């Protein structure tokens, strides 16, 4: 693990749209064979970063080396070693699964066996169906199949599970983990915490165009320095110094929902209930849980990943 080979090296990437800076000097590396997650709320610059890496957008400043090639100078070579699944892509709806895979296969110098790829992506039954009639999960698996058709080293997946039902998401997770077993490097964006936790070896958290943290999921949670979170609401608006409750290390409050982070769940809970009784406040929706990546995000940005 010590001598990990850098397969992607991002160097101070900047992308501006008018006055708005979508990506503001991102710098990170992706190791060969890992699943790397770009995590952040909508508009954080995840997709823009990914699209610059695959050559769909030109960076205003900085560059990146992908699979040994510079994205600003050797884009054609980059495209040969990467596979891309884009957010909200539609395909030629009147073609069949088999036809479009052969078509995309022909865009590259070589491609892998299409029937095997169809089997791998669990699309065997839909082989001769038109794309129009596929379900959301099937379409997404087809999009990943298209990314794999030329057997690339690095695979970019932009929000692969957004909009899918839980079962379809799990199927897709299995597929991504299988890719990792085969030694592929996967870079994916997501705003689902559980997904990042299950899939990713390392996670880069982005917010407002900036990279604000980069580590393994467990290390990110550990840095929160708290094991547990207590989440609740009060019935009425109250002005209460929550940080003074026993055992509380950090307070994350958002609108009317309060989150207390603590290492000593029992002491904090007892103290909270005592204070609430004393001041005659009613606690609503009280729950306790182990701290997660979601909490890391709230802690770092003061906001939730997905609003509302």
């Amino acid at each position: 693990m010590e001598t990990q080979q850098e397969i992607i090296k991002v160097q101070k990437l900047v992308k501006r749209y008018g006055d708005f800076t979508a990506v503001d000097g991102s710098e990170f590396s992706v190791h060969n064979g890992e699943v790397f997650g770009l995590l952040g709320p909508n508009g954080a610059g995840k997709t823009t970063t990914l699209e610059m890496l695959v050559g769909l957008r030109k960076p205003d400043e900085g560059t990146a080396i992908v699979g040994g090639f510079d994205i600003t100078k050797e884009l054609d070579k980059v495209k040969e070693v990467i596979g891309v699944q884009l957010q909200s892509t539609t395909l030629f709806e009147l073609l069949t699964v088999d036809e479009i895979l052969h078509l995309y296969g022909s865009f590259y110098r070589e491609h892998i066996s299409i029937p095997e790829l169809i089997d791998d992506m669990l699309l065997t039954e839909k082989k001769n169906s038109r794309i129009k009639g596929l379900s959301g999960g099937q379409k997404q698996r087809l999009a990943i199949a298209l990314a794999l058709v030329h057997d690339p080293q690095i695979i970019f997946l932009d929000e692969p599970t957004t909009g899918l039902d839980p079962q379809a998401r799990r199927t897709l997770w299995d597929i991504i983990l299988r890719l990792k077993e085969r030694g592929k490097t996967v870079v994916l964006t997501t705003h689902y915490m559980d997904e990042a936790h299950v899939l990713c070896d390392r996670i880069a958290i982005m917010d407002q165009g900036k990279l604000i943290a980069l580590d393994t999921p467990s290390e990110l949670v550990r840095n929160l320095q708290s094991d547990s979170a207590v989440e609740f609401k009060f019935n009425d608006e109250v002005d209460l110094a929550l940080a003074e409750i026993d055992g509380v290390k950090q307070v994350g409050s958002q609108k009317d929902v309060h989150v207390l982070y603590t290492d000593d769940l029992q002491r904090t809970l007892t103290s909270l209930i005592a204070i609430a009784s004393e001041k005659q406040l009613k606690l609503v929706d009280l729950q306790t849980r182990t701290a997660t990546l979601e909490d890391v995000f709230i802690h770092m940005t003061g906001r939730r990943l997905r609003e509302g």
Partner: protein
Amino acid sequence: MRSYYLLTLAQLRIFLRNRQVLFWTLAFPIVLMVMLGSFLGNGNGVSITAAVVDQDKSEQSKNLVKEMEKNEAVSLEKSSNEKDVLDQLKQGDLTLVITIPKGYGENLAAGNRADPFKLPVYYNETNMAMSQVGLQLVDNAVDTISKKSVSYEPVVITESKGVEALNLRYIDFLVPGIVAMMIMSNNMNGVAGQISSWRERGILRRMQGTTLKASTFIAAQITARFMLNGLQAMIVLAVAWAAFGIEVRGSWLTVIAFVTLGTLAFMAIGFIIAGIAKTPESAGPIAGFLSFPMLFLGGVFFPIRDMPEFLQPFVQILPIAHLSHALRETMNVGASFLDLGMEAMILGGWLIGAFIVASFTFKWE
């Protein structure tokens, strides 16, 4: 090379599987052609229905009826009841009624030159124009008979000659125009709509993420559309042949050459529109803005010389004007490709100019 072949095949499959588009892009020109062709197709077809009442029933009267029947412009019906046919004349069902009274044959045989036999011809004054034409035709027939009876030798005769030495009807004019119209709307409007919608839906972006070259993509588009156009043009020509007996008098190669040139020129314009249009919804109106003036001014339905003088210079540079003219010359007159060098050059100019502009305005996303 394989990607070129598969992309062409994919585009053809998309065409063939989109039955509705396929049907309506073909139904529109055919219905338009059949409709306009049936209403106006026979051009100067003034038809006159006349009735003849032969009361004489002699050799000479039969000769006169035969002479009148020779003229194709008159449909002649024979009747024995003069009163009946005069009633029909009053109602406007007949244009003329000619009565050959008893004694016509005898009188003619006697050959009384001083007092020519008077043949009563009835007409309805409310329909003067038609009646005049009909009277003229009857006069001709009668004139021929009287000339024959006196063995008249003409000193001067007229010989009518069409300049094109062809008998051209409106439908002959229309069919090449319809083919030109179809090429224009399928390519210009079709490319503009399809490409801008593929762009909007991210189809082009996804392909941009592969090693596919834009030139391969465009070449495949051109090939597939050319094949589809060729097929549709053949179907329209086949219907024209079956319904109206329209033939291609010139070389098929010349027709194919102009169908190709037209396809390419209008596709290039379509690519420009696709580049300019921000959304697929705006591509339609932009294409319509260009295609409607071309339909009405470009010599599709009406000859360009009928256009007002001040529009002439404008009309003369429209690509459709040259496409429809070239197709017309080939199909109607049988002009060769070399005779149509000017048209080929102007279309070629449009093609090159439009592709240059398109290469600057084209966007993958």
